[in-house]
Every structure is written in C-alpha cells, then in structure tokens.
C-alpha cells in the first residue's frame, strides 16, 4: 500500500471516530439543554397558572400545550410520557410536570405537558450539517491525498525510475537525480548520488583491475609459451630435454586456460557483457555440436539432438558460445565411452542429459569453482561455474539433477527464468 494512502486511512478512521463521539456528545448535550429549557418553561407556567387557578378555580385554555386538572393525586415533579397524536397517527414524546394546587381547601393536581417533538427539527439540522461537514472533510482529504501523491511524491517517483533504469555497466557514470524542494528527498537523492559515485568508482577500478590483470598475466604467459615453443623446436629430438619441455609447456597451457576461465568469470560477475543481441540458441548449439562432433564420435556416444522452434534469446554472442560449449563439453568430458548424450532445445529451455559416473551428494556443488569429478584431471573445473555465471547474468534458471535410476546427469537451462 502506498505511504500516503496508509496515512490517509488512519486520518480518516480517526476523523470518523471523533465525529461519532462528537455527534453522540452533541446529541446528548442538546437533548439535555432542550429538556432543561422545557422544564424551566413548565416551572414558569406553574408559577403563572397557580394564582390564576387559586383565584378562579379553573385553568386558562391551553395554547398548543396540554393542561389538565385532576383530583387524583399524582407523583409531583417532572416525567416523560407518550401521547397519541390522532392527526400524525403516531405516539409523540412529551415532558410533563405534576404539581398540587390548593383551591379553597381542596387539593387539585395539575399536569402541564409540552411536546418534545418541536426540538427534533433543530437537532436534525445540527446533525445533518455535521454529517455534511464530515463527508466534505473525507472527500477533500481523499482529493488532497491524490493531489499530494501526484505532486509531493513526484520527486520520489522520479528517483525510483532513475534507480530502476540505472545500469552500472552501461554508463558507469553517477546517477542523475532531479533537484527537489523537499529536504527529505534532497537528502535521499544526495545519498543515492554518493552511493552511485562510490559504486561507479569501485566498478571502474574493478574493471581496470581485471583488464590489467588479464593483460599483465597473459603477456608473460604468452612470452613463456612462445619461448617454450621455440625451445621445443630445438629440443624435440633430445631425449632428455623433450619430457622436461613437454611438462613445462603443458603446465603453461593449463595455467593460461585457468587464467582465461577466471578472467571470464570475473568479467561476467562485473557485468562487463552489456551488449545483448537477439540470437537463436539452435544455431549456436548446432555449430558447437559440429565442432565437437569428433569428440562425441570418438567416445562412441549416442547423440540425440531435438530442437523445437526456439524463441530468440537476448545474449552476448560470446557468452552464448561459452554457455553452450561448456555445457556440451561437460557432458562429453564426464561421459562413459559408449554412453548417451541428449540435447533438447525447447522454446524456452535447453536441456543436456548424459550418462556419467555415479554421483553422491548434491550435484549443484559442481557449480562451485574448482569442483571437479576427478581430482587429478588437468581441467581447472571452471566449466559449470561459467555456465552458472552466464545464467545468473541473464536471469536464466539453472538446475543440475542426477537421476540414480537411469544414471543420467541432467543440466536444465530455462531462459524464462527460475522455474
């Protein structure tokens, strides 16, 4: 619920409660005041009528009010009563006053009555005015709320929109927020701008670090590899030197592959692949399967490839390549000779199933870096980490399940997102 709507709701609730209580108090007060007034009138009338009654032995004709004379004793004082009104055909409330008067030694009981109904109309007027005021108040509060949320909160919504649209990797500049006349929002915007400046600086330095690290490490590696290759040409026929050179050369290659993998991972994590283009995964899969054909046939794997007409996905081409190659390579590398490899490309999912060694424990731990099935394997164990990072980068869903019954390893990438 919106902040302003919430506060307004409480305001309105309070206003309604206050109104109800106020109305009740007002009603009671008015009734009390009117009744007292009525009683005063009745007392005045008593004072006026008593000497007349004592003098004449009769009551003057009533004017609208009722006056009766009786010899039956009545409880003296004020009381309420109802009387039937034949014209209005309903019972109407009256206030009455009984009092005794001595006329020539005989006690008469006088009853004076005044209709309370006459007081109803000012009461009604007061109450309806109050109701109109409350409804007016409620409506104007609601209108004010709408107007305020449109106007007062506009800078807040602008800030929100700017934050939503803020992408560090696309324009690692500071966040541009409009100036506002409200201190709280100005403070918020200042804090956010500072945050974005810090983020931008961190991002920039991280990016530079990755680039420099890549350059500064790859270059000596390139030198090492080039020199070793020259040495290999010279020492290839030397039975003692050749194995030493071979091992050094192999280690250099492993190091450079590891380095490439790690650099790629940190680049994805830094979000340094912003240029997504629509591409068809089917084409990428077909191309990579062609490339890996021999690796598949060499291991005598039975390959099944099913592709539904897929919806293009928005990805950086290099990351799509990396995703597909790593998935396929993983499925080939960790397969039995003579096993199966099934690649299914649905409209929003890519699934790779393959036979492989029995897994115990949670298969998703292979998404962690340097986790490999064979500890002695020369591969650095980064393939599935790269797959995971690419999926995370694009918000794809990724599941790794092992089915012990069939011995199948299933990697499921859902381009729809987490399922």
């Amino acid at each position, binding site marked *: 619920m919106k902040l302003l709507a919430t506060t307004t709701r409480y305001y309105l609730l309070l206003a309604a409660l206050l109104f109800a209580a106020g109305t009740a108090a007002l009603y009671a007060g008015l009734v009390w005041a009117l009744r007292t007034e009525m009683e005063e009138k009745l007392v005045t009338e008593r004072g006026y009528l008593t000497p007349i009654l004592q003098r004449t032995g009769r009551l003057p004709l009533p004017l609208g009010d009722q006056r009766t004379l009786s010899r039956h004793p009545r409880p003296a004082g004020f009381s309420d009563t109802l009387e039937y009104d034949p014209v209005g055909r309903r019972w109407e409330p009256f206030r009455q006053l009984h009092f005794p008067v001595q006329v020539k030694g005989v006690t008469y009981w006088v009853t004076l009555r005044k209709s309370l109904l006459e007081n109803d109309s000012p009461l009604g007027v007061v109450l309806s005015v109050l109701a109109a005021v409350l409804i007016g108040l409620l409506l104007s509060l609601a209108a004010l709320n709408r107007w305020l949320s449109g106007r007062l909160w506009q800078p807040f919504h602008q800030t929100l929109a700017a934050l939503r649209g803020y992408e560090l990797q696309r324009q690692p500049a500071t966040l541009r927020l409009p100036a506002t006349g409200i201190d709280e929002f100005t403070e918020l915007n200042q804090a956010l701008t500072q945050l974005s400046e810090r983020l931008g600086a961190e991002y920039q330095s991280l990016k530079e670090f990755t680039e420099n690290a890549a350059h500064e490490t790859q270059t000596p590696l390139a030198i090492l590899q080039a020199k070793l290759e020259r040495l290999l040409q010279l020492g290839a026929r030397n039975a003692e030197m050749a194995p030493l050179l071979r091992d050094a050369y192999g280690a250099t290659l492993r190091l450079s592959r590891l380095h490439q993998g790690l650099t790629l991972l940190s680049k994805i994590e830094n979000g340094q692949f912003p240029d997504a283009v629509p591409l068809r995964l089917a084409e990428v899969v077909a191309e990579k399967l062609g490339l890996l054909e*021999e690796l598949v046939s060499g291991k005598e794997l039975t390959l099944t490839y099913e592709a539904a007409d897929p919806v293009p996905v928005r990805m950086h081409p290099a*990351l799509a390549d990396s995703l597909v190659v790593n998935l396929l390579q993983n499925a080939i590398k960790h397969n039995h000779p003579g096993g199966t490899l099934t690649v299914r490309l649905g409209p929003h999912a890519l699934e790779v199933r393959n036979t492989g060694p029995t897994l115990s424990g949670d298969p998703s731990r292979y998404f962690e870096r340097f986790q490999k099935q064979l500890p002695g394997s020369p591969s650095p164990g980064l393939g599935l980490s790269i797959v995971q990072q690419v999926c995370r980068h694009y918000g794809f869903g990724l599941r790794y399940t092992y089915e012990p019954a069939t011995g199948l390893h299933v990697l499921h990438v859902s381009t729809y997102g987490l399922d």
Partner: protein
Amino acid sequence: MKILIVEDEPTLRTSLVAHLQSDGYRCEEAATYAQAHEKIKLYRYDCVLVDLTLPGGDGLDLVRTLKADQSPAGVLIISARGALDDKVWGLKLGADDYLTKPFHLAELTARVQAILRRRQFQGHNALRFRALTVLPDRAQVLVGEAPLTLTRKEYELLLYFLANPNRLLTKESIAEHLWGDAADTSDSFDFIYNHLKNLRKKLQEKGAVDYIRTVYGLGYELSAE
C-alpha cells in the same frame, strides 16, 4: 611478403619476429602506437599484427586507420585483453582475424597464411609439399594428379601441417587449432591420433610417402626427410 608486428613486449616481439622469419616472411617491428602509426602511414604491408594494449594508444585505432586508408594489408589482432568481447569489436572494425594471447606460434603461422591467401590472391594459390598439392579456394587436395577425399577435420589438419612444414606441432596446439576452446578435454589427443591415422592411410593409399612423423610424447611433424 612483408609483415608489421606491433607488440610492446620486446621478448614476445623477438619471438614473433624469429618465428615468422623462419617461415620466410620479412618482418618489421613497432613497439609503440606512434611508431606503428607512422609505419602504416609510410609503408605498405601485406599483413599487420596488432596488439591492442599499446603504449601511447589503442591498437583498435590502428585497425581503424588501416581501414580508413583502405589499406590492402590483412589485419590480425593479437591481444590478451578481453578475449571475447574485444574479439567481436575487433572483427566489427574490419580486422581479418583475432588471436588471443597466449597462442601457439604454429597457429599464428596458419592464421597469417590464411589471411594472406584471402587478401593477396583472392584464394587463388596452391600450397605444395612434395607430391601434395592443396588448393585452398576449392578445398581440394591432390596427390600428384589424383584427388584425395578428406573429411573436414582431416583437411584442416593437413592444412595446419602444410602451414608449418618441418616444425614440431604439439598435440595441444593441434587440438586447439581443430577444436578451439573446446579442446579442453584430455580425450582430444586420442581424436588427433585417430584423424592422423586416417589421414596417413588415405595418403598412403594414393601412393604418397608418409610425410608425418611422430615426435614421441610431444606431437607430430610434417617432415621432408
């Protein structure tokens, strides 16, 4: 054939020069952006090897300059930077190929040759080694006069050998040449062996001598001896 090597790292540069010279190319060197810029403005090259991170400038600007001057030189980017996304950029700018550091020198030769073939002869040249003739524009291999039918991988393998005659090709470099980044499976060496076995068999069936020599534990060599 004249090649300009733009690389700021002196030790790597000398290795590249030595390697390409042994392939029979004339090489010139540039260590900074300014030097490279001056050279490409003054002289004509058949191929330019450009490192992207250079003192005094960005190698991509050299590629832009070459393209703006409509230079006939082929451009091969060699870089440690970015590898993946810079690759897309470099090729978009008009570079002919892109090689990520570190690379195999044999791979460099093969790439340079491919560029020169495409650039200078529009593909109309033949590669010859003894009785073997390869016509890359038609993807055809002849033993003497007789055509030889090869699979794509066997053909690529043969071409790689022909680009680097009398030179040891390590298994790793062959694997990476044939499968790229996907070569990262230890099994790939078995597949190289299988491809080579088939290639040798086909060559021998056509009466060619077995030119491919195994260098034990290291790799293979296309040898004239």
